[in-house]
């Protein structure tokens, strides 16, 4: 398993090489990409903040949740911080497994959980303004409810 928060551009090939194993016939890879619009506004760029030491810890927790649920071979997650331009990759989630259904299900679940509990924040910057995007208050990764 491999979890990282980094200011460097994300390298998908490295992540896939990490999770690929001889017994795994499937790899599902998700890219979160900066898009040019959000909530009806034209976005100029994004700014990501994170609590890196905790983010990697929580990534490991959600990976363990997912591995307990699906027969997954390996998992790797990277998130980028700092200023990201339109089209750049903010998040990569790679999952390998013997068969494809589990790779898809586990990868999708990881991305969903990531957005719920991993301490990473996004600021949208548009023409003439900016705002930190905040969702629901973070739910506790173990209990699923607010502590």
């Amino acid at each position, binding site marked *: 398993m491999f979890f990282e928060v980094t200011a460097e551009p994300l390298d998908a090939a490295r992540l896939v090489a990490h999770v690929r194993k001889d017994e795994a016939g499937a790899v599902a890879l998700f890219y*979160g*990409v900066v898009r040019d619009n*959000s*909530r009806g506004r034209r976005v100029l760029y994004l700014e990501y*903040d*994170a*609590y890196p*030491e*905790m983010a990697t*810890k929580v990534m490991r927790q959600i990976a363990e949740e997912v591995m307990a649920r699906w027969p997954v071979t390996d998992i790797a997650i990277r998130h980028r911080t700092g200023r990201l331009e339109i089209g750049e990759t903010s*998040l990569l989630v790679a999952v390998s497994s013997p068969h494809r259904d589990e790779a898809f299900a586990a990868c999708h679940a990881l*991305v969903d959980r990531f*957005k*719920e*509990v*991993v*301490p*990473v*924040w*996004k*600021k949208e910057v548009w023409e003439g303004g900016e705002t*930190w*995007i*905040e*969702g*629901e*208050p*973070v739910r*506790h*990764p173990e209990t699923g409810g*607010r*502590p």
Partner: protein
Amino acid sequence: MSGTGKAKVRLFARLSDLAGTRETEVELGEGLTAAGVYQALCTRFPALAGLENSLMYALNAEYVEPDHPVRDGDELALIPPVSGGRDVL
């Protein structure tokens, strides 16, 4: 047991913008909790006030309850809501 001493407090995203800093220290009074540290900070950084319903706390990089005690040498992080949701990616 909570007691006196110092804790490091880390602020992120909107909170660091509001406070104008990403990191500070607090003196720990007897029995101070995570939520108590936040209240103490609001005196120093009034812009942080009023967020108790959306804030989460992490002590030494683990989520904790608001009433969790904070001890000398701890690192407390104030965690605003993460981006979440369908519309994010």
